């Protein structure tokens, strides 16, 4: 039996983007929550970069990431060597299922029953919690937002603020129902009671699982960014710490980290820096009195090495997961993170998820954008997100077998109608005679133009063709 079959997972159907987006748009509470949160984040980001030469800093960020990617295989080997010297055990996983099995095996070897988790988007991508539960291992989220989302049996709706879709009343009700906390609108009280519950869990957990923001090859250091301290608890209190990360997170040196850190937290939440910047370079030494006895790093590929093959798509791997592209995205702000149905929502999700899950599953994602360009303008590592969206749109409808597909599910959204229309459009524009004839005929027979044009006209009036073409008018003006 294939081991993969054990992993039933908990997927929301990604294909249902449209109905979920509809539902979200008609839900005033979701719209209000996201709107106000995103407005706040946008203005905080702006203030945090005051006094910085932001363009030059973003150039540096982009170059630092590009340099790391250019040397990726060497850096991964250097990282492995250095971590091993430091006493950290390194594992490699081709996909999420393999990564889950590695985590399980480490847990089983320690006879672990409970795992406490710091925030890790890669573990969401792997669907680690459900996997571990199926294996009889309890996995508890400790980031407050993740904890709330887990109690509600939901998934995060924002990569930095997982529970942003809920308001205080809902959270209070949830904590009351699931943990017996008194109902209250006092955020301090709710936070304090979560602290008490989770401290108990930290003390008793057998294993801590965390993500990694940057892995430094030169010194063999795993860097984690956080505000709550749950990441430090997770990586310090249990006897065993397992870090999971995508293979693209490696950088050459701490100097690179200083550039990326300056960009990451300001872009993410408008903070100059997070409360904690935690740098881990080894397990507890003999003379030390706390810290884990064992530290592991699981390097997860899961589609990244395929993206790596293509010059254009490669840019996706620069991402430092700051979330700024979501915060500035007019679509994300209106539909919220859940509409996407993917681990990574918003613009970054649109360019990343098709690679991770294939375009057949994620085919609506590249089109769920107005291509306004805001994401590309704020991205701290200058990923040309709009260009990538256009490219993925092409791939999703493109059935041309001559060009080998880079993205799994290439052509999945292909509708022969759409492909034909674009073909005709290209043909017409390639010849001035045909173009003149075509536009002239369209103006002449404009009364025949339908007043409905699919979903476009559900909320808009259809545009009317002018009586004369632009070329005709220019001619009449003698120009």
């Amino acid at each position, binding site marked *: 039996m294939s081991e993969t079959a054990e992993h039933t997972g908990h997927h929301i159907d990604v294909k249902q983007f449209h109905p979920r987006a509809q539902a979200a748009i008609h839900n005033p509470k979701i719209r209000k929550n996201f709107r106000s*949160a995103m407005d706040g984040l946008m203005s905080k980001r702006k203030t945090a970069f005051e006094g910085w030469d932001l363009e030059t800093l973003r150039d540096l960020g982009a170059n630092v990431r590009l340099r790391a990617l250019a040397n990726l295989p060497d850096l991964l080997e250097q990282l492995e060597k250095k971590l091993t010297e430091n006493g950290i055990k390194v594992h*490699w996983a*081709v996909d999420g299922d393999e990564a889950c099995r590695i985590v399980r095996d480490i847990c089983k070897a320690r006879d672990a029953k409970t795992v406490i988790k710091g925030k890790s988007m890669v573990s969401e991508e792997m669907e680690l919690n459900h996997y571990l539960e199926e294996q009889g291992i309890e996995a508890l989220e400790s980031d407050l937002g993740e904890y709330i989302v887990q109690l509600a049996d939901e998934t995060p709706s924002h990569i930095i603020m997982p529970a942003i879709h809920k308001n*205080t009343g809902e959270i209070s009700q949830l904590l009351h129902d699931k943990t017996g906390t008194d109902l209250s609108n006092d955020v301090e009280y709710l*936070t304090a009671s979560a602290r008490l519950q989770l*401290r108990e869990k930290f003390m008793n957990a057998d294993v801590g699982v965390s993500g990694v923001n940057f892995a430094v090859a030169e010194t063999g250091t795993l860097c984690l960014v956080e505000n709550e301290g*749950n990441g430090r608890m997770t990586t310090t209190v249990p006897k065993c710490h397992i870090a999971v990360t995508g293979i693209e997170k490696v950088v050459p040196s701490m100097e690179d980290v200083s550039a990326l850190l300056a960009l990451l937290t300001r872009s993410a939440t408008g903070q100059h820096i997070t409360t904690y910047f935690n740098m*881990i370079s080894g397990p507890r030494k003999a003379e030390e009195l706390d810290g884990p006895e064992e530290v592991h790093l699981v390097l997860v590929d899961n589609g990244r090495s395929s993206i790596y093959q293509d010059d254009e798509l490669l840019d996706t791997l620069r991402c430092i997961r700051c979330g700024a592209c979501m915060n500035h995205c007019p679509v994300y702000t209106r539909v919220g993170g859940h509409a996407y149905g993917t681990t990574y929502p918003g613009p970054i999700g649109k360019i990343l998820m098709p690679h991770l899950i294939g375009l057949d599953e994620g085919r609506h994602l590249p089109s769920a954008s107005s291509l306004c360009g805001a994401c590309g303008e704020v991205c701290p590592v200058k990923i040309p997100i709009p260009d990538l969206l256009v490219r993925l749109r092409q791939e999703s409808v493109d059935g041309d077998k001559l060009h080998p597909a880079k993205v799994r599910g290439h052509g999945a959204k292909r509708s022969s109608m759409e492909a034909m229309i674009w073909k005709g459009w290209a043909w017409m524009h390639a010849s001035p005679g045909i173009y003149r004839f075509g536009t002239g005929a369209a103006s002449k027979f404009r009364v025949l133009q339908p007043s409905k044009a699919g979903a476009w006209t559900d909320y808009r009036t259809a545009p009317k063709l002018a009586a004369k073409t632009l070329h005709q008018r220019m001619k009449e003006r003698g120009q």
Partner: protein
Amino acid sequence: MSSRETILQRLRNRTGGELTVPECDFSVLVRDDWSIKERIERFEKMIESVHGEVHHCTEDMWMDRLAEVLNTRGARNLLIPKQHEIGRALRDAGRDDLPELLIYDEPIESWQAHLFNEVDASITSTRGGIAETGSLILWPNDDEPRLMSLVPPVHIAVLRASELYTTFHEAMQAQNWAAGMPTNALLISGPSKTADIEQTLAYGVHGPKELIVLMIE
């Protein structure tokens, strides 16, 4: 083939060919040299903006200030380093306006519950600070273990103004971090906090509710 080899081979045999390595110019991270006074001001402003406190002290009176801070909070005890001069000075002072002094000299396993439930405050040294972001640099060790700055609800850190760097970039270069890092190193920039419940800030969610810096000038 192992997964390791599969992944490395795919990366090595990239269909798009070799990638060019761009130049990285870090000079944008270098700020004009702020004077000590400017660094102190900036540090204070930054750390206060995130709910931390800075107390200006001298070599002679930091202990008085510490006693005040602890008394106003009703701290029943204070976890101190065993070897570091801060810890020694506190023990040698024999003051009666300080609460009970505790030392972290056993592995965590033997007193975890006590540390989590009974310790009210801790004091640690720092390896300097960063003015631009209002950050403290800590390298925990066997004398000041990792959990000392995390578990007690009040964390007091002693910072020498002369060890304030302008930026993180400057600090790591001045201290030559590239030569090797300790098992755990930290930048701490305020008390533990969350905004996960409807964007409302709450402090002390997992770590200390208060961060107090005794800045020795």
